[in-house]
């Protein structure tokens, strides 16, 4: 999937300009990191792509489609094409790992056979195939994070967004997670990862977008 921001601005109702004049173009199959200080606007940028928030100025094109032309009823269908790992929307602890990962498939109406296959394939990719019957509560932080990633990719999205996916993981687990994203990128998924961990980002050798006070201050080389 292809994403293009053209002088995008976002002013929250509080009057705070979270993003201003942000322009960049993420090509089909590309992988990039989004960095910046706390409050720089990383999460806001991802929410705009997910249509959780709407931009106040500028244009966002997803595969050439201007998001402003999509009405409220189109939002769910837009979201089904994007896999997300957001920290504040974690797993549901009232159901098994399997049913957590299956949620995006149920929502879009996949049948049981297909659901079973896809869920196991996704769990296999994150290396947790044996744990599908467990409650996510019984898993470690890193394992839970990987379940979240399995949920994000189970629908075979063309775009993967991850907001601080390594937030409170140790360095070894963090680079494991990053490698996972890299693998998805290798099979053609466009990937955008927001992260504070500059050292890790530098090691990954991908394009880096840096925000500062809501403005894009660096696009390209490694941080």
């Amino acid at each position, binding site marked *: 999937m292809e994403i293009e921001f053209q002088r995008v601005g976002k002013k929250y109702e509080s009057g705070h300009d979270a993003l201003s004049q942000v322009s960049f173009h993420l090509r089909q199959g590309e992988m990039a990191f989004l960095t910046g200080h706390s409050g720089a606007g990383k999460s806001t940028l991802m929410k705009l792509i997910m249509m959780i928030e709407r931009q106040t100025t500028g244009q966002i094109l997803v595969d050439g489609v*201007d998001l402003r*032309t999509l009405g409220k009823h189109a939002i769910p*269908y837009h979201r*089904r094409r994007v896999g*997300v790992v957001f920290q504040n*929307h974690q797993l*549901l602890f009232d159901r098994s790992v399997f049913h957590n990962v299956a*949620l995006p498939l149920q929502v879009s*109406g996949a049948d049981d056979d297909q659901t079973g296959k896809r869920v196991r394939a996704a769990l296999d990719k994150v290396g947790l195939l044996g744990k599908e019957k467990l409650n996510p509560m019984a898993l470690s932080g890193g394992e839970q994070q990987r379940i979240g990633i399995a*949920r994000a990719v189970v629908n075979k999205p063309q775009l993967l967004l991850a907001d601080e996916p390594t937030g409170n993981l140790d360095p070894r687990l963090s680079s494991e997670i990053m490698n996972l994203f890299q693998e998805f990128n290798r099979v053609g998924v466009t990937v955008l990862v927001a992260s504070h961990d500059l050292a890790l980002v530098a090691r990954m050798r991908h394009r880096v977008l840096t925000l500062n006070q809501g403005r894009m201050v660096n696009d390209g080389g490694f941080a």
Partner: protein
Amino acid sequence: MARPPQPPPRPAQRGATRQSQNGPKKPAWRTQGFDFKLYLRQHQAFLVESFTRLIGHPLASIMTIMVIAISLSLPGGLFVLLKNVQSVTDQWEQQSIISLYLFPNLEDTEALSLSHQLASRADVASVEYISKEEGLRYFEQSSGYEQIMSTLPENPLPIVLKVIPKAIVDLNTLPELQGLRDQLQGLPQVEHAQLDAEWLQRLATMISFGQRFVYAISALLVIAVLLIVGNTIRMAVESRRDEVLVMKLVGATNSYIRRPFLYMGFWFGVLGGLCACLCILLLSWWVSSPAARLIELYHAGFELQSFNAVEIILCLTISAMIGVIGSWVAVSRHIRDIELQ
């Protein structure tokens, strides 16, 4: 089986209407067709799932169901009571009499010809002619006013025609008989026409009063049940807020999120209605023997009526609809208001 009043959005059609709007390019990814089988399968799954959730919180569910049942059995019970009163009066087959008191100055011959004229009417079975003398005799015999009567210089009683209409008097024929009475009252020879069915008229007014009372109570309690279901479902949504948010994040439509809650409302309605029916059946069984004894004093061969099959089905349908509507009202806005941040 009650279904939500509106089908959920059909992806293909919605997509099609959106695509026709402006924009640099059409989103090609929203053109999958509407799959009816899938739709049915999802509904079936929700039906089962929402029921298991209900059982998952047995105490709260039972309380809600009992409140609904009690609220519905009151109007239901009154309805049965009313039905029985009506059926008692329907079985109380009686001939009614319209007494025509003619003007005192009317000649006997004129009165006789009127009596013949009336007897030949299609809606009249027979006419009994009671002359002044017969009236006096009858009066003396029955009232014990002999002495007073004999002191009077002249017979004060008018000629009376007892008209017996063909129609048997009951609540259905009462208006017809009253019409006949009014017609006869209008005759020039008739001073006063009296339909001897006052008790029935009173009963009719009481029943129509009772009906209105039942309607008003029913309306109030239906509203109460709507609120109860709405409130219960609202709490259910609130307790599953995280789930609603995650579902929105992974692309669930509002109607998809709403469906299990509508089914929950459906179950509350159906189960509440079922309990109400049971209450009413039990109650009618409980009062049946004293009621039968009471009725036997007046009339033999009367059977106490309770809810019949049609009424049970009607009651269940209505309660299921109340459940779905109540949860619909509560849930629609609420789910829209739960927004990702």
